[in-house]
């Protein structure tokens, strides 16, 4: 039976030269949920998801994905288990066509079956609205389209857990709205862990939130609970 929690961490800690970027983070993420990770700059959000995806080795603590411990697995193995990760700073294959960018994500799963790969790539590009740009070089796309391409490369892998690191950063308002619609459409298909600074996005799309502050979990709850939480207000606004 598949685990109820797609993701779980216990005591996850990352120390950089005596400084705790993350300290003793216990975290659970129920399957199918859209969960947002928020916190002030330097709270340790990117470090935390870095340890989840395997880009950053943990100093201490454990990570479970779908019931199996993955703490020691290298990043590529975790991803092949069903974690997709989009970069905070846009990272696409700039000199390759848009289509090939998505195809690289698909091919790892579908392999040599050219027809299946093509169909999947077409489907994903249609879904995110990149069909017209398919033959352009990814590096020639507008910034907004490159961010969309990042998301397409994640979607193309049919992830069980989709980690989005600040996906709306630098996007224009209509693009943010399109992104929110896309995330809402993904509900039920996959579990989403979203790092986000834009509070409108967080409050509108997420089922629940975790607030990090100084590398530790400050609060967890529904958007309404978090909005009303005095500690969170203090951390963000510098309270009394």
């Amino acid at each position, binding site marked *: 039976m598949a685990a109820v929690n797609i993701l779980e961490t216990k005591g996850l800690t990352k120390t950089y030269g005596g400084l705790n970027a993350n300290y003793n983070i216990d975290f659970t993420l129920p399957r199918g949920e859209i969960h947002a990770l928020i916190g002030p700059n330097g709270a340790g959000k990117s470090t935390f998801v870095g340890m989840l*995806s395997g*880009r950053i080795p943990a100093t201490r603590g454990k990570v479970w994905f779908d019931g199996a411990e993955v703490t020691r697995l290298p*990043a*590529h*193995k975790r*991803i*092949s288990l069903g974690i997709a*990760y989009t*970069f905070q700073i846009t*990272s*696409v*294959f*700039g*000199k*390759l066509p848009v289509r*090939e960018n998505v*195809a*690289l*994500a698909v*091919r*790892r799963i579908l*392999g*040599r079956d050219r027809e299946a790969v093509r169909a999947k790539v077409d489907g994903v590009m249609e879904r995110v609205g990149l069909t017209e740009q398919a033959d352009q070089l990814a590096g020639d796309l507008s910034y907004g389209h490159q961010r969309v391409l990042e998301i397409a*490369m994640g979607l193309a*892998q049919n992830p069980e857990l989709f980690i989005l690191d600040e996906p709306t950063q630098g996007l224009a308002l209509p693009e943010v709205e399109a992104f929110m619609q896309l995330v809402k459409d993904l509900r039920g298909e996959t579990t989403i862990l979203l790092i986000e600074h834009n509070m409108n996005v967080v409050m509108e799309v997420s089922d629940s939130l975790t607030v990090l502050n100084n590398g530790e979990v400050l609060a967890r709850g529904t958007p309404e609970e978090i909005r009303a939480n005095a500690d969170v207000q203090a951390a963000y606004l510098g309270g009394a």
Partner: protein
Amino acid sequence: MSDISRIHLLHAAMVVALVICWFVLPVYHAGNLARIMVFAIYAMGYNLLFGYTGLLSLGHALFFGAGMYGLGLAMHLGGVFAGPGILAGLITALVVSGVVGFLALRTSGVAFMIVTLMFAQAGYLTVLLFGTYTRGDEGFVLPQATRALMGIDLSDAQNRYFAALILFGIVLFFIGWLVRTPFGRCLVAIRENEERARMLGYDITRHKLIAVILSGTISGLSGAAYCLLFGSAQAAFAAVPYSIFPLLYVLLGGMGTTIGPFVGTLFMFYLIDWSGGNMMVAGVVLVALALFAPTGILGEIRRRFTPWLP
């Protein structure tokens, strides 16, 4: 016409053109071309690692030398025939590139260049150290009688030309096929953005290691073919200049293109030939190319006219 059929057509046309060359070219140039094809195999092997995977090795002479001495010593000292000799050359290059790849891939960038350079120097010095068997710089010659495969005398100019052409064609089609497979596409992805490729779930280290082994073994095939077809093995072929040549061939012809290595080898060979060995002229042309066609001859053609070039 689809890109795939164009690519097959291009490669086939190239092989046909090389067949015709034998019948129309003067003997001197046909002889050169046989040599160029053997070195083009070396350049294609190098290009797989440098042009497609983005790993700059400065030690490929080690793999060329491994193939050359693997075949040469097996035939010279072991007394085996040419067929098993080729096999010995390939296996030697495969093992050497596997070991070097395993160790050198712990580094990247400039460190990778230096580590591969050092391994190649160690290989070169090993050839000199065992001078009793390898005869060092002076080298040894394979007797004409032993240089035959399935009863065909490979020291004969025509047989040699077509043997070189067959090997060249096999490697050309192999690379043309390989770079279109999911594996080959992943190599390009590693070249373009290694971290992104890793975060798409590809095992980067494994892909790079296989690339080093394939590249090294193809380079070894070239070394073995050179020894067999031209009948000699010398330590100079394992020295630093022979690590730099394939880099130049590929840069000139166009890195990451299937026929660029051949074009680069041809160009470089005749550049030195026509300038009468005057390296000043060759140097000026090389600088001009670097300035005005930084992606090489084929790279420039692809950019301007034919974006489908493989």
